[in-house]
């Protein structure tokens, strides 16, 4: 079996072009005994099923909203599935649906694009085969980024627009993060014992309505980030917290600069490898890192539960 990871991009206009590429991709997988997954919204799913005929029964259809729930968790699960298939002597074959995330909040779109790029590193050697169809009607920046994150075109030719995944990932972080609000809670860290830090973070998170399970996740994440800062960074260490939209944002800053070539926890650890920042990415809704000569900033975002709308009494 071929262990190379194959990651192709399809840039299409109209449903005929989509089906013309997606159907042979899926039916080819069924014919080869692959573990075949099609990520699709309901309308596309129906069209694909009709076109596939009997072969559709051997395709696992996954709702696109569910699949594109969380970038780091998706990459981790995808790797787990690919390795499982590989152990079974099969390959994992996935038809993606990037149109699902293409119009979300720009900060989230960047994270999905980063996953597109880094999957080329993370899934290396698993034999997985992924086809990502980008409709031309999507925002032009999304379509352009899609060309830079896939090493091959739909036909299997080398894609001349492909960019090194780590270089792509660096470009994702080139812009500065928005400044914290003036009224953010600030705690300077002077003691290496993080017990008090957790008291502080837990107190604010609960006050802002974060549920117990999420508070625990946040505490684990903050402890890891602060432990790293104290171990590898330089003083002054500071922690800030605020609420932004529906997220609790927790920021850890220090005066040090991360080593060149740091992977920022973007890749799942290899079997028996240690996990740190990578697990932090799984625990939080989003993790943003900026590092330079002026120091380093790590921002953890955790979404608060949606508050049910209260009807306004207009009496």
């Amino acid at each position, binding site marked *: 079996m071929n262990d190379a990871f194959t990651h192709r991009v399809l840039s299409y206009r109209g449903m005929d072009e989509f089906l013309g590429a997606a159907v042979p991709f899926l039916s080819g997988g069924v014919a080869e005994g692959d573990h075949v997954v099609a990520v699709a919204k309901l309308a596309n799913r129906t069209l694909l099923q009709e076109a596939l005929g009997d072969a559709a029964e051997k395709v696992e259809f996954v709702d696109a909203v569910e699949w594109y729930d969380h970038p780091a968790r998706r990459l*981790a699960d995808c790797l787990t599935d690919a390795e499982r298939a590989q152990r079974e002597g099969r390959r994992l074959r996935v038809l993606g649906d990037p149109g699902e995330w293409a119009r979300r909040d720009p900060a989230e779109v960047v994270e999905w694009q980063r996953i597109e790029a880094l999957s080329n590193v993370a899934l290396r050697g698993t034999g997985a085969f992924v086809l990502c169809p980008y409709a031309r009607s999507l925002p032009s920046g999304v379509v352009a980024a899609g060309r830079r994150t896939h090493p091959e075109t739909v036909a299997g030719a080398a894609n001349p627009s492909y960019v090194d995944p780590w270089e792509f990932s660096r470009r994702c972080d080139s812009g500065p993060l928005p400044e914290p609000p003036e009224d953010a809670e600030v705690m300077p860290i002077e003691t*290496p014992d*993080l017990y008090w830090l957790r008291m502080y973070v837990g107190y604010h998170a609960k006050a802002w309505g974060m549920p117990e399970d999420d508070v625990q996740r946040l505490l684990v994440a903050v402890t890891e980030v602060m432990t790293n800062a104290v171990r590898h960074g330089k003083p002054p260490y500071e922690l800030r917290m605020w609420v932004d939209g529906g997220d609790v944002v927790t920021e850890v800053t220090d005066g040090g600069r991360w080593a060149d070539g740091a992977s920022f926890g973007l890749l799942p650890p290899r079997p*028996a490898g240690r996990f740190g920042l990578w697990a932090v990415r799984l625990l939080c809704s989003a993790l943003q890192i900026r590092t330079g000569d002026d120091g380093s900033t790590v921002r953890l975002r955790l979404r608060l539960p949606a508050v049910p709308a209260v009807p306004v009494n207009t009496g």
Partner: protein
Amino acid sequence: MRWASNSSRAAYSGRTRTHVDGHDMEPTWFDKRPVGEVRPGDHAWLAYGTPEERDRVIGAFVADALRTEEKVVYVTDAPPERLPGLTGPRTRLDLCTYTASGQLRVIPRSRACLDGGGRFDPQRMLETLNTEVERAFDEGFRAVRLTTDHSWLMREPGRPDLHRVLGCEHQVGDAVSPSTMAMAICQVDRRLCPPDQLAALRDTHEVLVEVNPEFDDGILRITRTFEPHGLRIEGELDAARHSVFAQQLSLVAHGRRRVHLDFSRLGFIDLGTLNLLAEHATGLDERDALVLDNLPPDVENVIEMVGWHRLPGLARGRSGAADGPFPGPEGVA
């Protein structure tokens, strides 16, 4: 009878215990306490599962007394040099000096609590204890520690009616509890005692005694457990305490197969500790797995997010709220 100390030294004032999470002990009938915190007025119960457990509790109970000029009264047929937990390398005490000075009184059962026919006589036991406490008072000791192992009552042919033993225990409890001078630990080998009798005997005590913690800095407490073999981790575990935890884990794992970690009172565990556990478990085969018992739901949630499959060698043990009124394996069968 005089069960109050005439010593002016207040050795046990203000020794109340709160939990590491800052809350008071749950209001239960029993108070579970490390042996180092047993104090006058405590009528304590030790149902040990292994000789090591007994040695570590009773050894500390006796040795602490001898080092602090308290009196020890031990009802047993064993000679002083064979008292539990006092002969190992942990405790080097010249016991003959203490028996000679009267600070350590080892009284054989025939003189302490048997009648002329060699049967258990609760009344005689009570009289012996009264006499010994009175003597300790006159001798000027600030406290007196009483202990005996009831296991022989469980295995003896024609053993006494349980009600007589219970009655004796109630009377000892009534005498010790209001005392400012006397404290007692009643021992029994739980393996020799049917569960219903064990529960009935335990119910005549207000305090459950256990080993002293291996480590306790107010934020993290690590205590050895014997059934199952392992450690109980209470409080918060992060990088500041990795080395002490790793050291205790390697000590308890030494030469043993399966180690259980009781996390029922774990408030926080960091990713570094999970890495540490996974590294420890690397190379263990499945039946030797490191078992995580009683994981609090929010901690388990974190582990699930990381994925149990990334922590090979760690096994999810029994679950459910741990310490009710009957902690650990002490629970009613």
